[in-house]
C-alpha cells in the first residue's frame, strides 16, 4: 500500500530549524567561503598563472585566474549543497535523531526532506554571496550580470542537494559517503571544465563530462561572471532543472523507505 505524496508549505519549519542551528555557529559557517577563495586565487593567481600565461577561451583572451574564478564559485555551490545533504543530514538523521523528532510532529517525511534540501540550497546561497564578495575584490566578477549567480546558486544548490539526499537515503554508514565523493564529486571537480576547458579532453570524455551537472553549472557561472549570454545557457539551466526534477522525488522515495519501516 502506498501513501500519497504529502508535501505542504510546512517544510519551511524544517528550514527554520536548520537556520536556528546555523545562527548558533555562524562564525564557523562563514569562515570556509571567506577563506577558501583567497587560498585558491592565491595559489592559482600567483603560483600557477606565471606558468600558464594568458589563455584563449571561446575566442577571448583572458588570464588563467579569471578563467577559473567562476569555476571556483561553481565548485563551491556543488560542495556546499552536496556536503550539507550528505554528511550533515546524515548526522541529523542517524546520530541526532532529529528526523525522528520532526516526524513525530505534524510534519511528514516529504516535508522533512524538502526542508533539508531547500535549506542546503539556502546555505549554498549564503556561502556563494560571501565568496562572490571575495572574488569581486579581485575584480573577477562583472556586475550587474554577476548578481544572477545568486539565484543560480539556489538552483545548483537544489540539484546537488537533491542528489546528495538521494545518497543519504541509500548509504548504510556515514563512511560510505566516500564512494559518491570519490566517484562523483572528485571527477566533476577535476573534469567539468573547471581548471581546463572540456574541449581539451578526448571526445569520449567530453561526452561524459556533458552528462555531469557541474559542467553545466561551470558554464553558467562563467557566462554570468563575465556577462556574456548566449542561447545555450537556457539549455544548461534546463539541464539543472531536470536534474532536480529527477533526483528530488528519488531522494524522497529513498528516504521514505529508509525512515518509515
Amino acid at each position, binding site marked *: *500500500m502506498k501513501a500519497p505524496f504529502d508535501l505542504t508549505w510546512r517544510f519551511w519549519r524544517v528550514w527554520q530549524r536548520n537556520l536556528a542551528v546555523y545562527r548558533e555557529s555562524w562564525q564557523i559557517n562563514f569562515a570556509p567561503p571567506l577563506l577558501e577563495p583567497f587560498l585558491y586565487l592565491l595559489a592559482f593567481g600567483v603560483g600557477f598563472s606565471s606558468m600558464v600565461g594568458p589563455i584563449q577561451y571561446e575566442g577571448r583572451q583572458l588570464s588563467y585566474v579569471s578563467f577559473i574564478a567562476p569555476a571556483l564559485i561553481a565548485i563551491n555551490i556543488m560542495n556546499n549543497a552536496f556536503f550539507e545533504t550528505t554528511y550533515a543530514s546524515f548526522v541529523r538523521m542517524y546520530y541526532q535523531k532529529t528526523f525522528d523528532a520532526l516526524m513525530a*510532529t*505534524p510534519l511528514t517525511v516529504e516535508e522533512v526532506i524538502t526542508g533539508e534540501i531547500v535549506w542546503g540550497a539556502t546555505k549554498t546561497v549564503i556561502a556563494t554571496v560571501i565568496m562572490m564578495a571575495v572574488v569581486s575584490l579581485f575584480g573577477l566578477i562583472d556586475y550587474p550580470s554577476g548578481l544572477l549567480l545568486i539565484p543560480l546558486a539556489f538552483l545548483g544548490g537544489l540539484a546537488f542537494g537533491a542528489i546528495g539526499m538521494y545518497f543519504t537515503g541509500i548509504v548504510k554508514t556515514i563512511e560510505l559517503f566516500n564512494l559518491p565523493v570519490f566517484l562523483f564529486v572528485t571527477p566533476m571537480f577535476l573534469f567539468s571544465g573547471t581548471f581546463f576547458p572540456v574541449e581539451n579532453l578526448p571526445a569520449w570524455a567530453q561526452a561524459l563530462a556533458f552528462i555531469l551537472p557541474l559542467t553545466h553549472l561551470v558554464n553558467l557561472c562563467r557566462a554570468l561572471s563575465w556577462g556574456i549570454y548566449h542561447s545555450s545557457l537556457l539549455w544548461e539551466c534546463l539541464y539543472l532543472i531536470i536534474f532536480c526534477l529527477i533526483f528530488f522525488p528519488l531522494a524522497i522515495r529513498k528516504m521514505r523507505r529508509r525512515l518509515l519501516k
Partner: protein
Amino acid sequence: MTTNSIDARHIRKTYGDLVAVDDVSFQVRSGECFGILGPNGAGKTSIIRMIYGFSPMTGGELMVFGLDGRKNMRAIKARIGVCQQENSVDPDLTVRQNLEVFARYFDIPRAVAEERTRKLLHFMALDHRLDARAIDLSGGLMRRLIIARALINEPELLILDEPTTGLDPQSRHQVWSRLEELRASGLSILLTTHYMDEAARLCDRLMIMDHGRIIVEGEPAELIKNHIGHDIIEVDEPSAELRAYIRARNWRHEDLGHRLIIYVEEGNQMFHEISGVCGKEGCLMRPATLEDVFLKLTGRDLRE
C-alpha cells in the same frame, strides 16, 4: 459517548518473515495511563511506532481519537506528544530554544510558545538551565527536556517509550511524580517500560506482551492477584527435604535450582511450616509484585 484515545483492532506488523506484532487489539481509554510491558523484541516499540505513523501497519485497524491512522496521521500527530526511546534533542540549541523551535512544528504562535516554554520548563524543573546547550545536559535533564518538549502542543495523549531507562533513582522519581501529575490532570498516557515498579506505580491498566502477542491484560493489582496470589516465599539453596515437603502438599512453586519460589495465598501459616523445615536463614516472605507476574508469564530465559 466518549471515544477511546486509542482503539487498536487486530493490528499486525511484519518485517519480511519476522512477525513483530501479531493480531493485537487493545484500547487506551481517555484519561488513563496504559502500559505495554514485554521483553526486548516483544513488539512494544513497533506498536508505538505504528501509532505515530513511523511504521505503516501490515494489517488491522488503528483509531486514535476516533481518527483513522491510515488517513488522518497529520491530524493525529497534532494532538499527541511523543517521547521516543532515544534522545532526539537539538544538541546545538539551548534548552529554551529546543522548545521554541519545536513549537513551530505545531504552528504555535511565538508568544504562546514562549509562555508555554516558560511554564513547561518550570514544571519539569529545568528553569535553572534555560540557556544551557542541550548537549551539556546530563541524562536525567535531557529526559526531562524531552518530556517538556512533548508537552509543548498540549497533547491529549502522551506516548512514552521507556521514559526512565538509564536514569538515576532521583531522576526516575522526579519523572514519575511529574507523570502522575499529568495523569491526574486528565492526560491519557501510553507507556512502555522494562521497570515493573514503574508500571505498577503509573499504570491504571497494562498488557504484557511476548513474541508480538498479548499474554495478559488488566489492572496491575488484579494481575498480581490472579496470576501469583498474595505473597511469595523465596528459599535460597533449598534442601531435598524441603522440595519433597512442598511437592507432597502440592503447593504452587517454581524451582530455579539454587532458589525455590513458592506462590502463597495465606502467607503466615505456610511461612511457619516452611521455615520449620529449612530454618529461617535463607527463607524470605514478601508481597508478590508485577515482576513476579512478568517472569512467570514470559519465562526466565534471556532474550538477547
